[in-house]
């Protein structure tokens, strides 16, 4: 990937996630919390660091983005409000959009709803399971 394209991909992730990766001080709380640790190739702290370094392509190609449970524990625990889950979410979204296919259709939504889940988790799950 050319430098410009790489930068564009990075900018897109940063824009859509709204995350400031520079705030990360690499304490590892996110990875320490992550329930899906064993399943993941890149763990939440690596995720943040790789985004900081602009390695979006590597992340997009990794199955890790679909192993994330979207439980948001990392966001909840992060002492600096970096919100790694939002980054993972953003990369996942970019991959799904790239593939361009099967978006969830509005009429499918009600059947999938679970009253007990937080809104954000539902939205995230819909994106994930409908690829």
């Amino acid at each position: 990937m050319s430098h410009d394209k790489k930068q564009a991909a990075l900018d897109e992730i940063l824009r859509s996630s709204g995350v400031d990766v520079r705030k990360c001080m690499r304490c590892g709380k996110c990875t320490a919390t992550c329930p899906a640790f064993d399943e993941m190739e890149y763990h939440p702290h690596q995720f943040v660091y790789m985004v900081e370094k602009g390695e979006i392509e590597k992340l997009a190609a990794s199955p890790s983005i679909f192993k994330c449970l979207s439980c948001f524990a990392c966001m909840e625990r992060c002492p600096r409000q970096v919100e790694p889950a939002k980054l993972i979410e953003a990369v996942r979204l970019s991959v799904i959009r790239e593939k361009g296919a099967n978006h969830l259709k509005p009429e499918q939504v009600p059947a999938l709803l679970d009253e007990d889940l937080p809104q954000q988790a539902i939205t995230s799950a819909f994106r994930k399971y409908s690829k």
Partner: protein
Amino acid sequence: MQRIGVFICHCGTNIAATVDVKAVAEALGREPGVVFSTDYQYMCSESGQTLMRDAIREHKLTGVVVCSCSPRMHETTFRKAAEKEGLNPYMVEIANIREQVSWIHKDVAEATEKAIILGRAAIAKVHLNKPLKAGESPVTKRALVIGGGIAGIQTALDIAEAGFEVDIVEKEPTIGGKMAQIDKTFPTLDCAACILTPKMVDVAQNEKIKIFSYSEVESVKGFVGNFKVAIRKKARYVDEEKCTGCGICTEKCPQKKVPNEFNMGLDTRRAIYIPFAQAVPKVATIDANYCTMMKTGKCGVCQKLCGAGAIDYKQQDTIVEREYGAIVAATGFNPMKPTQYNELGYATCEDVVTSLELERLMNAAGPTAGTLLRPSDKKHPHTIVFVQCVGSRCDAENEKGKPYCSKICCMYTAKHAMLIREKYPDTEVYVFYIDVRTPGKNFDEFYRRAVEQYGVHYVKGQVGKVVEENGVLKVQASDLLSGEQLHIDADLVVLATAVEPDKSARSIATMLTASMDTNDFFTEAHAKLRPVESPTAGIFLSGVCQGPKDIPETVSQASAAAAKVIGLLAKDKLTCNPCVAESDEMLCNGCSSCEKVCPYGAITYTDKEFRGPNRTTLIRRVASVNPAVCQGCGACTVACPSGAMDLKGFSNRQIMAEVDAICKM
């Protein structure tokens, strides 16, 4: 026979967990002469001291043994308590059963046995203790500060503020020290010169302060309250009184090729020079190693130009003798030269610089007038790599560097990175670190600002190789978080080198008989409770000479040292150490052996009349000790062939009694 009281301290569980304190109290209670023996949780506490005082009164004790922590910790405490009850303080002895027993032994039976033996030795000693009375000595109400950096300046100003005279001895031609070379200060980023130079002016204008610039301490004699110091005023070949600091000589001197040490050798100065515009005293100095007149006898330009007639090529070093009551060491530091790390290329690549060199490259008064240009081609660097911990935190056993953390590098590197990113946003800045250590008020926030606001790339890892190829510095480094080796093409590499004590500190410490640690930092009297005093009475510590410090910490310590000095100078008389040598005139044969070994000249000989046999009178030459001058080392006691010399408080019989008690078991 003495009536001795024994007090065993639990020190919470520090002693009681390993030593059976009840058993010790019981065993020592059976020793001859012991009339009272008990144990208590904290002997040093108010109630512990009361317990001791009550026992002294009720049991009419004539001697006290406290089995507790090191006498270096609480001997004075217990002696003061005894004195309040009318017992001579020197009738109190300490058996060290914490540092020497409970803290180093695990087996209770073994530790208890050792505690009993140490207690017995102390009891045996107390049996032979005699009440001692401390003499008094006068205090010279003037202080000496060695070193004119920010530490020395602050100490001197604070002492002068209290109304005492202070002399500053500075080996360079100007005071100011390292802080004068610094561009901006963290975490507020105000300019160092703007906050330092007014203080330098205050020093120059203060009537109580005398500056000996371009001078060194030659010798120190005497003791607390009464130091006699010889100061060597090095010949600067310029009459300080006449020189007006106009600077014409420094502009016209034809010898232009002298490396400018103030700018870390990054540019040149003349052979006659004033280090920087705000120098105090603002007096020119001739560098005899480079001056054409001094070397060949042909030139004399400065002499011809000097309107004040201040130039004197024949000036000699002069020695000034001064008396002081207290001495403050403020000898400061130097950043280590990283030439031994070949992999970092400092010796081979011009564009690998130290942080202090970068400081000059960014300073408006520096060689580039404040524009950041790299030394080799004077071009603007676009990629800069900072390397942390160069020479710091190395294993103490090998020779790679210093074992300690230099403490200030994390912060000044964050400062440099931030300033560069602010002034030149087109520059990429990488910082390679092992840890980022930024404790301190507003310090971590400052470092985070460098990362978050200024986008400095902090990489956990180290630089392994720097090689120059066609004007580009090829940096090979590690990124431990991603487990990769990085290759960066840099224009400038900055090394945060370890802080090391100034080379002069070692010889000054020897003159002051102040102790130093293995890294040549001055040792404090107590690491926690007496951090600005040397174990040697009357010697105080200010600034980095005691350990790495940033400016705020240095200034705090400088003021703390000043407070201690003021406390000393405010006294009219000092209590002397009564544990001094004493000569038995009846045994003395006048041989002068003791006089020869005395380091203080405390022993003199007098001819005295003695009664001889058959009503005759004999005149004999006998030694007498001046108790105000004797410091109680005991060298004379061993040198004396007739056994006439003894040391009060550590007498031959007392030490022998201890030996016997220990060997008896």
